[in-house]
């Protein structure tokens, strides 16, 4: 039976008159990658920091491993069991990778061998490299290594790929996938749709302090993502009219592509059969809805690369 690692109920966090987290409730299960997806200022980091016991809550409850984040004696127990990669992770510049991980490891009574963590994150070549000389991606890997040094059951990764180039981002994704394989529970916050979709077992879409929807990527896409789209490249106006008359929901874009919204695979095959009968050899592309479509549907906007809601 899957154990609940994090349990949040009616969580509220207010800064004066601003309600940063507004009546949020969710669970995180053992061994899953749970993603908080939302734009900057949505309340992701605030929620995570409440669970990390470094930010007080206003009302509601938040528990990790059954311990209350508001009780001092429980806080000690939670801190022993969690690993954290904070947003914009930084470390002591003049210390080496190993020394920085040792520093974090030195804070715990029980920790795993630093070299083991370094190996796990594939940082062996950089063991004695100073932190200041590392690239952004490597720095994030050091941050993840530091988060694992106490062998935590739950790992918080707060915007782990923000500001990284695509290659470095993929490297971090690979690290997160490995954490899942190791059986760690991962609480990921991100404003990258693709990241949440690729990595998460469950996603909570959060905006303005409220969770809009929560579920697995497939559940969310099937429920909120809309219909699949079949694109017939350079199909032209005549074909568009034919498909429209047969199946409806057809558009012609400026490039002459015919775009058809379909409900299921069966309908898609029908259209393709029609094209074959018409002996039309056109390039066909099938576009399935993504989390971005889900987000657009439930929040009513898109998130820019910088994390702003548009």
């Amino acid at each position, binding site marked *: 039976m899957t154990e609940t690692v994090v349990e949040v109920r009616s969580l509220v966090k207010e*800064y004066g008159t601003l309600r940063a987290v507004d009546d949020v409730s969710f669970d995180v299960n053992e061994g899953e990658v749970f993603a908080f997806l939302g734009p900057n200022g949505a309340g992701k980091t605030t929620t995570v*920091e409440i669970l*990390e*016991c*470094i*930010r*007080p809550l206003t009302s509601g409850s938040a528990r990790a491993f059954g311990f209350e984040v508001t009780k001092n004696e429980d806080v*000690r127990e939670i*801190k*022993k069991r*969690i690993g*954290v990669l*904070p*947003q*914009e*992770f*930084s*470390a*002591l*510049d*003049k*210390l080496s990778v190993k*020394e*920085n991980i*040792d*520093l*974090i490891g*030195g*804070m*715990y*009574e029980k920790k795993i061998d630093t070299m083991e963590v370094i190996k796990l994150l594939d940082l062996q070549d950089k063991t004695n490299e*100073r932190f200041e000389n590392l690239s952004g991606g490597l720095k994030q890997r050091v941050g993840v290594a*530091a988060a694992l040094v*106490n062998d935590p059951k739950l790992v918080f990764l707060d915007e782990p790929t923000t500001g990284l180039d695509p290659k470095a981002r993929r490297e971090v994704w690979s690290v997160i996938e490995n954490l899942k394989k190791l059986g760690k529970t991962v609480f990921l916050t991100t404003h990258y749709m693709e990241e949440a979709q690729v990595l998460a077992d469950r996603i909570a879409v959060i905006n303005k302090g409220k969770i809009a929807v929560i579920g697995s990527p497939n559940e969310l896409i099937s429920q909120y993502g809309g219909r699949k789209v079949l694109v017939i490249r350079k199909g032209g106006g005549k074909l568009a009219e034919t498909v429209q008359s047969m199946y409806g929901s057809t558009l012609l874009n400026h490039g002459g592509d015919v775009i058809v919204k379909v409900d299921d695979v069966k309908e898609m095959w029908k259209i393709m059969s029609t094209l074959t009968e018409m002996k039309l050899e056109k390039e066909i592309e099938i576009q399935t809805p993504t989390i971005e479509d889900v987000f657009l549907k439930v929040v009513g906007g898109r998130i820019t690369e910088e994390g702003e809601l548009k």
Partner: protein
Amino acid sequence: MRTLTIFKAVTKNWLRSRSGLFFSIMFPVLLLLLFGAVFSGGGTATYSLFVQNLDIDTSSGKPTNMSAVFIDALNSTKTFNIRNVPVDVNATSYAREILGPLGGNVRILTIPQGFQKDLLDGTIKVRVGITYNTTLTMYYIYEPYMNETQKMTVQQGLAQMATYNATIPEGGTSLTLILDSSDQSSGIVKSIVVSVANAFNYELVGAKNVINFSEEQPSTARQFRYIDFFLPGVIAAFIMTNGIIGVTTNTTEFKRRGITKRLSITPLNKVEWILGNVLSQTLLNLMLTAVIVVVGWLVFGVQAIPDAVSTVIIFLGSVMFSGIGMMLSGLVKDVEAASAIGNAIAFPMMFLSGTYWPVESMPTYIQSIAKVLPLTYFSDGLRYAMIYKYSEGIVTNTIIISALAVAFIIIGALVTRWKEK
């Protein structure tokens, strides 16, 4: 254990930072070399002085004996670099021309024409006056024992002396000293010239010193020079700046970069964090002290070497100022504010605490301020331990430093936020 881990990491990080090393150790050493060169007594300060001697003997065309002797007397003080100004020029214009475009302080002493004659006349008049007064006093004392003839003789003598003195010109002479009011050395120059003139006066009238001075050092084991007295002040001042500016900016930078936040997520508590940083800074300050003392010993031959008691005071002082640094970093938000507040506190304290010059030389209200500044107790305690070996002063100041160290660390722990808002 966690304190030790923080101590090791912060110390390593600092030791590998060139800028940190420069500002915490090399900069104080450079200042020590600079101040040491100024105050070590390696050479006596000399002041340039233009002298225009207008008292020329008309027959020989040379300066009169008295004016030449007066200039020799000025030279014998070894404090003046005397430059002679020709008789027929404007002394101020001449001095400015000699000093050149880079300028310099214009100090001109003019010996007037007739200096020798006026001096001799004045001397004779003073001597006759003294003889007259002495005789008159004696006369009043011995009058009851004198017969009429004796009285008459003395009265005639006194009358002749008074008549003769009246025929002597008033005498006396005036030297003119031109000093720039912006010249910081003008007071010293004036007092030396006046001293020489007074000595000249006494010599001419045959007066002898009644009050004499002998100068001795306080009873210490060794003979110390000014640089030795200066050294504890330098050590105290830089331990203070390292604590108040260095610790504040470093730990605020850790905070800005999220390093403190990252550590706060671990089981580390804020007291352990503060103690780790304080101990690290204390070790660095002990290293700084060692470097300063070694450089002072090698370059200036200082004898004030810290002993065990001084080392304890240095340790406590470091803890106290690092505690202040941790307290300030708990109060400020960004590095710029930390640097500004650190400088705003450290620099006035450095100059108001009697570190470089005695508190007694400052106005009374500043002396009152000095009494509440922690650096006053630290530099006093250190000076008592390193120089005077004054037990009572050592104990009192050490107790105050210890109490302040504990207080600042407690306040630091109270104001340091270990949780976000």
